[in-house]
């Protein structure tokens, strides 16, 4: 659909949304009214507090339905797709034909992050959701450095092992630690003169391609990514760098 759109309840253009939130006050009827006024101040109309109740001493929880007056124009939003879907065999074939050697990929959870579920899902042989991990690809040589890898270690490894693509993973986002770590990695690669020689890829449940490119990365992969998404991106980008 093109043109301005709004959230859809049961009628086109009704702008219906549901909100739920906690307020740091005891529940009472005036707490419901406080919740309603808050949502009105957010710019919503037709505000209905469907549920309000006490959830702890001094805390109340609300479920609210409301209509938004604003709309967005979808036609003005640029596409952010990172790669075309390809199978493992197609990706291996592309690497073999266009690059002519194995692609070297290093992955790590950087900083103090110890949550390797995401990077393991992408790299481990077994993969994720029935999509094989990069270790299974014939034309990829994969190094999973694991958790809590410092930016310095990762950059040193990249240099020593002539890495083609770095997968930096961040799950913990508290107080912007993920952004700080991603930025530090990009900066150190620049400082070491390695940035142009590698594909720098960010990953994690809160990562988007938009965020990653804003941070100067080549791509970002978030929720619902399967290993072949990442493999296809690496293969296509590297193949594009090889003179035809």
């Amino acid at each position: 659909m093109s043109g301005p759109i709004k959230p859809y309840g049961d009628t086109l253009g009704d702008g219906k949304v549901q909100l739920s939130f906690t307020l740091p006050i005891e529940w009472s009827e005036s707490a419901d009214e406080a919740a309603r006024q808050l949502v009105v101040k957010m710019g919503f109309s037709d505000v209905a507090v469907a549920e309000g109740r006490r959830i702890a001493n001094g805390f109340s929880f609300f479920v609210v339905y409301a209509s938004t007056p604003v709309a967005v124009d979808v036609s003005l939003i640029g596409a952010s797709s990172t790669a075309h879907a390809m199978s493992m065999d197609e990706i291996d074939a592309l690497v073999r034909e266009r690059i002519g050697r194995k692609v070297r990929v290093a992955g790590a959870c950087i900083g103090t992050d110890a949550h390797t579920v995401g990077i393991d899902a992408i790299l481990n042989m077994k993969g994720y959701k029935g999509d094989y991990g990069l270790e299974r690809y014939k034309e990829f040589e994969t190094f999973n450095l694991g958790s809590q890898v410092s930016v310095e270690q990762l950059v040193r490894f990249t240099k020593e092992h002539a890495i083609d693509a770095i997968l930096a993973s961040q799950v913990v986002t508290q107080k912007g630690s993920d952004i700080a770590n991603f930025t530090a990695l990009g900066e150190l690669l620049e400082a070491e003169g390695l940035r142009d020689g590698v594909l720098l890829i960010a990953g994690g449940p809160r990562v988007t391609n938009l965020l990653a490119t804003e941070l100067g990365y080549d791509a970002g992969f978030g929720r619902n990514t399967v290993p072949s998404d990442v493999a296809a991106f690496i293969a296509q980008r590297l193949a594009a760098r090889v003179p035809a």
Partner: protein
Amino acid sequence: MELAIDGGIVGDARRLASAIVDPVETFIGAHSTVAVERAVARLLDVDGTGGDEVPLSNLFLDRLGLERRRSGSAAWLGALVAETGRSPREVAVAVAAGRLPIETADGVPKEAARAALEPHVRHGLERVAARRDERQRLLARLPQGPAPLLYVIVASGNIYEDRTAAVAAAEAGAQIIAVIRSTGQSLLDYVPYGATTEGFGGTYATQENFRIMREALDAVSERLERYVMLTNYASGLCMPEIAAIAALERLDMLLNDSMYGILFRDINMKRTFIDQHFSRMLNAYAGIVINTGEDNYLTTADAVEQAPAVLASQFINEEFAHRAGMPDAQIGLGDAYEIDPDLEDGFLFAVAQAQLARQIFPAAPLKYMPPTKHMTGDIFKGHLIDALFNLTSVMTKQTIHLCGMPTEAIHTPFLGDRALSLENARYVMNTARHFGDEIGFKPDGIVERRAQTVLREAHALLEKIASAGLMNAIEARYFADVSRPPDGGRGAEGVFERAPGYWNPFEEALAPLGSASR
């Protein structure tokens, strides 16, 4: 409801677990680690920090050096106490500051050192026993309510925010509060000091943070007239020290696994085996229930495929815990509801695994972990998956129930997320409280066949591990598909052989408990 399972296979699996653990126990008995020796020092009241915020227990160990530490930190603290007439803490402060040369301790007769330290050892044991007895009295006066015990986490990074969240969660029905540690603490070779307000993905485990949280939960326990338990993590490089300070601050549970650190944090295996043994001796004496980490096998690999590895690990964890003197009632073996929601009859498989553990470990306070791997940004579907997890837990009589959060895949829980999660668990567990007592399994049906398969495969895995040896098996990727060599990993430099005449007075005092329980 009871599954028909072969008791002969179960008995043989226990025999194999014992054969697997035997040689590791021999190794443990001949070695110690810097973390064990620091825990001994802490039990002797060597608390506080020296220059640059370094804990006194670390500074003292550093001053001992590589050769002296082989006799055990107590031997040297005793010698210095005998020589100076001062307390262990006072001599440690003086040694750390360089005012009392460690050489002062050389040549002090062993008997004099032991005699001088004896009242301090007794005092340390009495402090732990007093907190244990206090818990018993509180539990008798303020019963905590029926199991599955609802367990939620707080993880703001700031102990004072955590305190607010913990009190609110208790009021919303939580029976156990866990303070998640700052990511990375498992790899620190010291325990941070004092109250902390900065952490990533969690809050540092420090003795002062333990005290702050215990005090707040004691107050809310009185108000709610039910005892609210507190738990933290005795894992990573400071496992025994955390066990020691948890005992002193009356924590009620500790995450503690005999292999988790090796496999999932790349901590040296020898270090981990030695550390878990002394940690568990302390936990046993302190009345602390341990929670093992089998759920981790499922978050990193397929739940159906890894089910036998979970059961095999439960047998091994049980055996290690028994060897350290833990009674069954303190061994909270772990499992998780990590079944793929798209798998047909996945719920039946999860019930089979949970009921199998319930029957094989009837006296263990089993710890059941919520879905995490298959949780997405769709909080509505997540809430539904959590409801089935809650149902599985109540019908198979799990004991420690870690409430799943609808926002599991999004952020560390908001206060409102915790309230919704607790409401879900309370609703399902109340409405289906005695469901498990009212139904039976179809003989040779899907659930029973699945349980039998898991048991048979776990037994086969234990056979393979027993013939390879545990350390070799870990190197050969038998667990979680990772390889860890016996001398690799973090913290290996902190492992050493005991010198003849090595002395650990707490091990000496608590060892009879170990032999008695076997």
